C-alpha cells in the first residue's frame, strides 16, 4: 500500500464529498452485514488497536466487530489494563503501541483534543477519533447520517433538506458537535434545543455554522416541524455543577415525550446515541416506539466503522468500497 496515513479526527474540516463518501461506503457495508457470512478480506493483514481510555460499550464493541468483519486483527486496550494507571503518559502509551506497527489507532479519551494530540505525534499510524471529551465523536455523526439516509430513502427523501433538532445537554456533547458540522455541510437546518445553562449562546456564532444553526430554549418551539429529533444523554454527573436545578425540573422542561412529538413533521424520527436515561431526557414510550431508531443506529454503526477503518487504512487509494464489499467472503 502507498503508506497514506489518513486520520479521522473530526467532522469539522471534512469536505462534503468526503463525508458523503464515508456514508455511502457505510451503506455498501450494510449489505455485507446482512449476509450469512459477515466477513470480507479487505483489511486482512492490517492491525487495528482500540485504545479506549474512557468507559464504552457500544463504540468499542462496534469498532472491534467492524475491524474483524474486515478481517483486520483487532486489539483492545482499556485504561484499567494499560500502563496509564502506572503513570505512563498518553503519548508514551501511543508511541509504544505505534512501535508494534498497527495500521490504525482508534482512540477514545475524556479530554478534548486527545486525538489531535496523538495525530500530531504519530508518524506511521492513522488515528481515528472515537470520541474526545466534549469535542467530537465523528463516527457517531456518520452512523447517524447513515441511519437517516436508510430511513428516509424508504420515503424517497435524501439526507439533504432535512430539519433536525438536537435536544438536551449540548454544552458537554461531542455527539451534538459532530452532528452540527455534518448537517451544516449538507446544508440542513439544525436547531439546538436546551436550557441556557447547557446551551451557551456561543453555539450561535461558530464560524462556518452561522446560517444553519438556531438556538431554542423551549422544547415545544424547537421541535416544531422537524424531521429528526436527536436526544442527547443528560450527563448525570454534571448535576453538582449547577447546570440544572434537579432531574425532575430538567425532565419536565426538556424531556422528549410522545405527545410533544405531535408538533414535529409527520413521520419524524427520534435518534439517541445511547446510553439513554429513560424517563429523563426521553420517555420510554418514545424510545420503545417505531419512531425511535436506536437499534438501527447501533447496527449501522458497525457498517460505518468498517467504512471509516477502510478509509483510514487505505488512505486516498479507495474512493468507493463496493468493489471491496462485493469481494469474496473470507
Amino acid at each position, binding site marked *: 500500500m502507498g503508506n497514506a496515513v489518513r486520520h479521522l479526527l473530526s467532522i469539522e474540516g471534512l469536505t462534503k464529498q468526503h463525508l458523503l463518501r464515508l456514508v455511502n461506503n457505510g451503506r455498501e457495508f450494510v449489505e455485507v452485514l446482512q449476509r450469512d457470512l459477515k466477513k470480507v478480506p479487505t483489511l486482512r493483514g492490517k492491525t487495528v488497536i482500540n485504545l479506549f481510555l474512557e468507559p464504552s460499550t457500544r463504540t468499542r464493541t462496534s469498532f472491534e466487530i467492524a475491524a474483524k468483519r474486515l478481517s483486520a486483527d483487532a486489539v483492545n486496550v482499556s485504561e484499567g489494563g494499560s500502563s496509564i494507571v502506572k503513570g505512563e503518559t498518553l503519548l508514551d502509551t501511543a508511541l509504544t503501541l505505534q512501535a508494534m506497527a498497527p495500521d490504525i489507532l482508534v482512540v477514545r479519551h475524556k*479530554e478534548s483534543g486527545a486525538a489531535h494530540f496523538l495525530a500530531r505525534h504519530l508518524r506511521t499510524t492513522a488515528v481515528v477519533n472515537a470520541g*474526545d*471529551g*466534549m*469535542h467530537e465523536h465523528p463516527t457517531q455523526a456518520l452512523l447517524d447520517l447513515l441511519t437517516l439516509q436508510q430511513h428516509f430513502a424508504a420515503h424517497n427523501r435524501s439526507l439533504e433538506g432535512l430539519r433536525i433538532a438536537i435536544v438536551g445537554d449540548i454544552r458537554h456533547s461531542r455527539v451534538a458537535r459532530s452532528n452540527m458540522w455534518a448537517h451544516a455541510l449538507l446544508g440542513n437546518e439544525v436547531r439546538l434545543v436546551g436550557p441556557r445553562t447547557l446551551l*451557551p449562546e*456561543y*453555539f450561535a456564532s461558530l464560524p462556518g455554522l452561522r446560517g444553519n444553526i438556531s438556538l431554542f430554549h423551549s422544547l415545544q418551539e424547537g421541535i416544531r416541524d422537524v424531521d429528526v429529533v436527536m436526544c442527547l444523554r443528560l450527563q448525570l454527573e454534571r448535576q453538582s455543577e449547577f447546570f440544572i436545578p434537579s432531574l425532575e425540573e430538567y425532565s419536565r422542561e426538556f424531556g422528549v415525550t410522545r405527545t410533544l412529538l405531535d408538533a414535529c413533521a409527520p413521520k419524524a424520527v427520534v435518534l439517541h446515541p445511547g446510553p439513554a436515561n429513560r424517563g429523563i431526557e426521553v420517555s420510554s414510550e418514545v424510545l420503545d416506539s417505531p419512531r425511535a431508531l436506536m437499534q438501527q443506529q447501533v447496527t449501522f454503526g458497525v457498517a460505518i466503522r468498517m467504512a471509516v477503518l477502510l478509509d483510514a487504512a487505505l488512505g486516498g487509494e479507495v474512493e468507493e468500497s463496493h468493489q471491496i464489499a462485493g469481494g469474496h467472503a473470507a
Partner: protein
Amino acid sequence: MTVVRNGRVVDPSQGLDGERDILVRDGKVAAIDRPGSFASLRDEETIDATGMLVTPGFIDLHVHLREPGFEWKETVATGSDAAALGGFTTICCMANTNPVNDCAEITRCIIDHARAHGRAHVLPIGSISKKLEGKEMSPLSELARAGCVAFSDDGEPVKDAGLMRRALEWASMLGLTLSCHEEDKSLSCGGCMNESALSTKLGLKGMPKVAEEVMIARDIELARTTGARVHICHVSSGRGVELIRRAKNDGIQISAEVTPHHLMLTEDAVTEYDTNAKMSPPLREAFEVEALRRGLADGTIDAVASDHAPHELDSKRVEFSRATFGIIGLQTSLPILLELERTGVLSLSRAIESITSGPAKVFGLQAGSLRIGQCADLVVLDMGKQWQFSREHCCSKSFNTPFADRLLQGKASSVLLAGKTIVREERFVNGEA
C-alpha cells in the same frame, strides 16, 4: 569608568530622546552630554552605540524563577541570564515557589543567589497569605525588611475579601503594593482557554472574562476603601481595562500590567490544541487585544510584564486540559514591544516607558531611569537585528514559548548592570551563551 558613545538615548523618565554620550562611574550614571563630550577621558571602557538605542535597563514586575522548589523548570541564575539577554536588569519574582516565599529566609535565599550570580537585580515578591492558602496573612513587615518589594498570591488569587482587606491595610503601612492575579476560580473552574465560540468548538472548558472582571471590581473597591495600592496583574480584557480606567479617574491608587502575549496573540493560537498557547489568563479575541493595546497606549495600563513562567516540556506535551499554564517571556518581550512600535500601536517612548519608568513607578522602585546619580542599569539596543528565538538562544531551562519560529526584530546588544558591562554584542562578558 565606562562611556556609552553615540547612541540615541531614550529615557522617558526625563523626557529624553536624542544623541548622547553617557558616562558611568562607580556604578552610577555620572553624566549625560552631547556626543564627544567625554573624549578627553583616559582608560575608560567604551561601548560604541552608534546607530543603536540606549535606554534604562528594563524592569519586569512579574516573573517566575521557580527557585526554591522547582529548579528543573528554572533557577534564579538561569532566569537572571534570560533577563540579561532580554535587556532586563530588574526582575520581580513571584512567591509561588516551594516553600512559598512567605518568610524572610526564603526572601534572603533568593536575593543571595541572585547577588552571587550577578546578572540581574532580583527583587522578590512575598506572598500575601501563608503558603498561598488564602487563610492567614504572611508576615508582611518581616518580608519587607528582608527585601520584598511587593506582595502577591499570583496563581492562587485571594478568595477571602476580608483577608484581602486586612492585607491591604497592613501593606499600606509599609508603602508597598499588592499585586493581584484576578480570577474568581468558581467562575473559571476547570477552564483552560478563553470562553468563546472557539472553546465551544474545540470542546475545551472556557475561562470567562467575567471571572477576571469581578475580581478587578472587588479589588478596586477594596483599594478605594483602604487607600492602599493595588496592582492588577496581566489584565486580559477590554472591560477590565475600562474598570481600571474609571478607578484611576476616581483617584483610586490602582495600577495595571499587560503581557506581551496578550498584546500580540489571540485565542486562535489555541486552535490546534497548542499547549504553548495555554496560559492564565488565557489569550482572548482580537477585539480584546485591540482594547489592551489602547489601554497601554493611553496610559491606563502602566507596565508591560512578561509573566515569564517556565515549564518543562513534559508538562506541556500532554492533553491540552492537563498541560501546565504559562509561557516564558523574558527574551521575547522587547521584540514584541518593538513590533507594536513599528506597526504604530505604541510610540517608541511609550514602548520603552512601559518596561522602564512605568513599572518602576508601580512598585516605587529606584530604577528605570538614567538620571544622574541613578544606578547605572542600561541597555544598548540593536533595533534592526532580525532573529528567531530558538532553543540555542534560550537561557531559561524551559522553552515553552509560542514565539519560536516568529521573525523577531530588535535585541539587546549590550547591558550594563550597576555600571558593570555584563552583556556585549549579545553575549555575556566572561561567560558562555
